[in-house]
């Protein structure tokens, strides 16, 4: 038998080893967290550093003479406003002769400049016959030069702007006629072939309608299913099978739901293609299992003693569930729903299958209008060849991430505010 001090020495030796193991484990854990954070930081920096420039757009200051010969009360809507813009450019550079040079000169200004001028004249017809100063968006090629995304040392043939155009840009800049201004268009316009005219509002509205459909279908259906399965359904082979299937559905790749939507909603029911209605239905199918699983977990976390208490004072099963269990489970169910919605907001693949990937310029006005969604818009822009769409893509990602952070934040807030610990 060892003496007391001998045992203490033995224990001490193992103690050191145990503490070392614990320290080692903590360091590994910290390192894992650090690596995760690092990746997140890299991701965010990459997106933000690429995208922040999209919130500004180069504008050109033009002196436009609203020629009464071109614009008069009879043709306010259809007058050749772009022609007026072109005339003002010719005035700025009177030396430019020749058809090709002129065309290049006109290309410095966005093709949407005319409609901006029209908007101004429509608002105030007294402008007709006067000379006005107006800021119009520059073409995306000019925008890229101003933002420093173009390498001027490249041979002329490999640049979008030739030497003459660059000289004009420099001249405009010297005269203070080029300025980067807040890009409101990006937040108010739909998609466009011209990067300087493209915006995310159309996709945002499309996403909104789609999610509205998804929420209004999947929340009541998911909650009802969760309550029935958890509180009322008998436990037998059929409900076990059902549970396994719901869990499997939650893991089904989302593109499969898209194919299902294509086959059922579009081809069989003939619902309108590319519409938020169909997109919402498909996302409902995708979100339902998530909501049911989260709902059941929330119901399970309500202790049985609450059910017992209600039943023991003579509440019926239904009353016990709806008066006591459901209100206590609701914060958890809402959290699950919000997280499901956030997933639905970021979902792209199933929407591609039901035609929400179309190029849509108009802002959707209802559930059956053709629309696209934010992540699909990102996909579309990422695929576009113009250099200016690179920053637009990143900016759209920032907007989408903003919405996602907002929704997940709401889920965390709900959980902390209303969750009850037992």
């Amino acid at each position: 038998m060892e003496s007391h001090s001998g045992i203490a020495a033995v224990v001490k030796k193992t103690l050191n080893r145990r503490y070392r193991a614990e320290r080692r484990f903590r360091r590994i854990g910290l390192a894992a967290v650090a690596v995760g954070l690092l990746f997140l930081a890299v991701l965010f920096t990459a997106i933000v550093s690429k995208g922040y420039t999209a919130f500004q757009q180069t504008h050109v200051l033009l002196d436009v003479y609203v020629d009464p010969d071109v614009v008069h009360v009879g043709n306010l809507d259809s007058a050749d406003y772009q022609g007026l813009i072109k005339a003002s450019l010719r005035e700025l550079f009177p030396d430019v002769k020749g058809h090709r040079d002129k065309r290049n000169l006109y290309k410095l200004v966005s093709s949407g400049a005319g409609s901006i001028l029209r908007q101004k004249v429509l608002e105030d017809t007294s402008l007709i016959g006067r000379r006005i100063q107006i800021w119009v968006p520059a073409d995306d090629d000019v925008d890229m030069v101003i933002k420093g995304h173009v390498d001027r040392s490249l041979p002329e043939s490999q640049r979008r702007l030739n030497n003459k155009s660059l000289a004009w840009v420099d001249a405009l800049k010297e005269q203070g006629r080029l300025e980067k201004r807040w890009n409101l268009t990006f937040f108010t316009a739909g998609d466009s072939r011209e990067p300087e005219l493209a915006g995310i509002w159309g996709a945002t509205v499309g996403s909104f309608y789609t999610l509205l459909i998804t929420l209004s279908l999947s929340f009541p259906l998911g909650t009802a299913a969760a309550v029935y399965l958890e509180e009322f359904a008998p436990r037998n082979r059929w409900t076990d099978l059902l549970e396994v299937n719901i869990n499997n559905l939650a893991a089904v790749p989302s593109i499969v739901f898209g194919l299902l939507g294509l086959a059922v909603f579009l081809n069989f029911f003939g619902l309108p293609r590319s519409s938020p209605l169909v997109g919402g239905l498909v996302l409902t199918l995708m979100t339902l299992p998530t909501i049911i699983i989260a709902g059941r977990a929330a119901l399970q976390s309500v202790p049985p003693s609450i059910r017992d208490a209600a039943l023991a004072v003579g509440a019926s099963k239904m009353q016990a569930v709806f008066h006591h269990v459901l209100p206590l489970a609701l914060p958890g169910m809402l959290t699950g729903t919000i997280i499901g919605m956030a997933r639905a907001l970021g979902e792209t693949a199933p929407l591609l299958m039901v035609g929400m990937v179309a190029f849509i310029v108009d802002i959707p006005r209802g559930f059956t209008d053709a629309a696209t969604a934010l992540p699909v818009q990102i996909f579309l822009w990422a695929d576009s060849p113009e250099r200016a769409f690179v920053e637009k893509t990143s900016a759209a990602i920032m907007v989408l991430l903003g919405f996602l952070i907002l929704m997940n934040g709401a889920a965390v807030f709900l959980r902390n505010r209303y969750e009850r610990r037992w």
Partner: protein
Amino acid sequence: MTTVGEIRAANPRMTCRQVNVYYGDKHAIKNVSIDIGRNEVLAMIGPSGCGKSTFLRCLNRMNDTIEGCRVTGTITLDGQDIYDPDLDVVLLRAQVGMVFQKPNPFPKSIYDNIAYGPKIHGLARTRSELDQIVETSLQKAGLWDEVKDRLKHPGTGLSGGQQQRLCIARAIAVSPEVILMDEPCSALDPIATARIEDLIHELREQYTIVIVTHSMQQAARVSQRTAFFHMGDLIEVGPTDRIFTRPRHSLTEDYITGRFG
């Protein structure tokens, strides 16, 4: 196995005859017959897992909520078979209230805890009637003076003993005839326990009480009759003072003298 002692009561509120309970294949209660007299406190004692809680839960059909639980035999309340398919279990539970081992107030206000039962049964027509029921119930449970100024406070904010008295008040509020108590003091400290035991004494005048307890001292203090369960059998039943002084069955004697438990 036949039960030793007197299973009959002079003026029974509830009678149980040949009650068997099965959990799936497990035979949890074996052929138990016992009467529960009016205005008496019946204590049910026995080692853990002997089936006393299971039997208690038969008396207001709380076992219905357990999957795979099957009850045979007859249990009557005032002559009415409570397992009769025509009998409404909601009505039964309004007549046979229950207090659980762990205090389980609803996470609502003290007032709402008490008012819930009367509300769903439509026992009060007006707000003031409801107020009256809440006050009387809390008074009967000896809690009124402690909480009358904070009826809107959450019931879960009370101490453990207060919570348990709140649960008793909640059971009383629907004016039951029988109150079942499943180890109501096992989660409480000795002072809170003493208060509950005093309360049981007072409640006995108006209600029939069946209490499951692990503490033989408690059984001796609060009950008039005691039933000893072992492995699903009702071994012995009789007047409490006789059971604790002159047990007739050797198992009962072994248990109350602390040879097993």
